[in-house]
């Protein structure tokens, strides 16, 4: 019994995850929302960024968060406090979210609200610069954070994450006077592995640079919505 050649040709090692991710994305597209996968090492400031950004943009965008965390729901509680619907996804042993976990989170989200009413869905991944880069969850864009306190060599040491990112946020720039790091070197290292990424320098603590990031985000959400085909009307 011979199998046709194309049966195994190019099948991805992570094909099973990819199929589930594509399925999630088909839902996002049907709901006409933009999904962002937010990734960084632990403590780079993902949750602080989301608190500030969601607060700033909530008058203009309807948003929700799927919050990945290994053991606790502390981050989900912080985000719920800014008034956004949050579904915590506790990953336990796994150091990243995968498409099946996000699919489970979506089912829970649908019990809270109609996702078609959302403009933007945030997926806050587990803090880790390695494997989240390889496990797609169905997002349209990947956002990677790197705080200035982590050092300028991280884009070179964890290049896959920064290569895969569509947008890189250099965070905690209010700490630059206190740390021996050259922010332009961080940016140069990001650009060396990924010249196409949008790069912003921000501080969620002081708000510095956040306006530019928010303008880009608003434009991206609107551009995405405009590109979606019109809804199918049931006869």
């Amino acid at each position, binding site marked *: *019994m*011979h*199998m046709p*050649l*194309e*049966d*195994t*040709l*190019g*099948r*991805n*090692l*992570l*094909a*099973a*995850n990819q*199929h589930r991710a594509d399925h999630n994305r088909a839902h996002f597209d049907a709901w006409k929302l933009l999904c962002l996968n937010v990734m960084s090492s632990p403590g780079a400031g993902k949750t602080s960024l989301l608190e500030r950004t969601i607060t700033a943009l909530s008058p203009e965008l309807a948003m929700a968060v799927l919050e990945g965390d290994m053991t606790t729901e502390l981050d989900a509680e912080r985000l719920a406090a800014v008034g956004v619907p949050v579904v915590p996804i506790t990953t336990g042993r*796994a*150091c*990243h979210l*995968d498409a099946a976990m996000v699919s489970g989170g979506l089912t829970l989200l649908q019990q809270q609200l109609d996702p078609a009413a959302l403009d933007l869905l945030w997926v806050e991944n587990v803090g880790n610069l*390695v*494997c989240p*880069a*390889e*496990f797609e969850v169905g997002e349209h864009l990947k956002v990677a954070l790197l705080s200035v306190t982590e050092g300028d060599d991280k884009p*070179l*040491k964890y*290049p*896959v994450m920064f*290569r895969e990112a569509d947008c890189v946020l250099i965070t905690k720039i209010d700490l630059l006077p206190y740390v021996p790091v050259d922010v332009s070197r961080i940016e140069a290292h990001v*650009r*060396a*592995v*990924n*010249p*196409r990424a949008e790069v912003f320098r921000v501080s969620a603590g002081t708000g510095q640079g956040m306006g530019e990031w928010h303008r880009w985000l608003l434009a991206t959400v609107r551009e995405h919505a405009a590109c979606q085909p019109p809804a199918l009307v049931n006869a």
Partner: protein
Amino acid sequence: MHEVDMTRCLLLSLEEWKQEHHPHVPCVQTVHLQVGTFTCVEPAALVFTYGAAVQGSWLDGSELRIETVPLRARCLACGSDYSPEPAVAYQSPCCHHPMEEILSGRELRIRSIDYTSPAVPADRVSILSA
């Protein structure tokens, strides 16, 4: 150790392959992977976790063989190909252009599977992709 999750996902992908094409359980001898060096996978760790994960399953006794694919990129300034130096320099040595086009090194691919089908037990069927 994310190779555990990688292995779990590989087993799910193999399970999908089995279900799509086989009413009977194929007897797999070897799974051949191509793994690029510009991925988050450590081949030795993947082989180790695979051996542990398949015990008692339909893949018990099968072997995972990994071909490593080096990172190669093309300088878009002058068009020449080069090998970036991992963790040191990714821009082209010729023109110092950023690593824009990756030619190889991102592979995470099941290249082929050596197996025998219970329908024709005498044959050892090897499926090789081009």
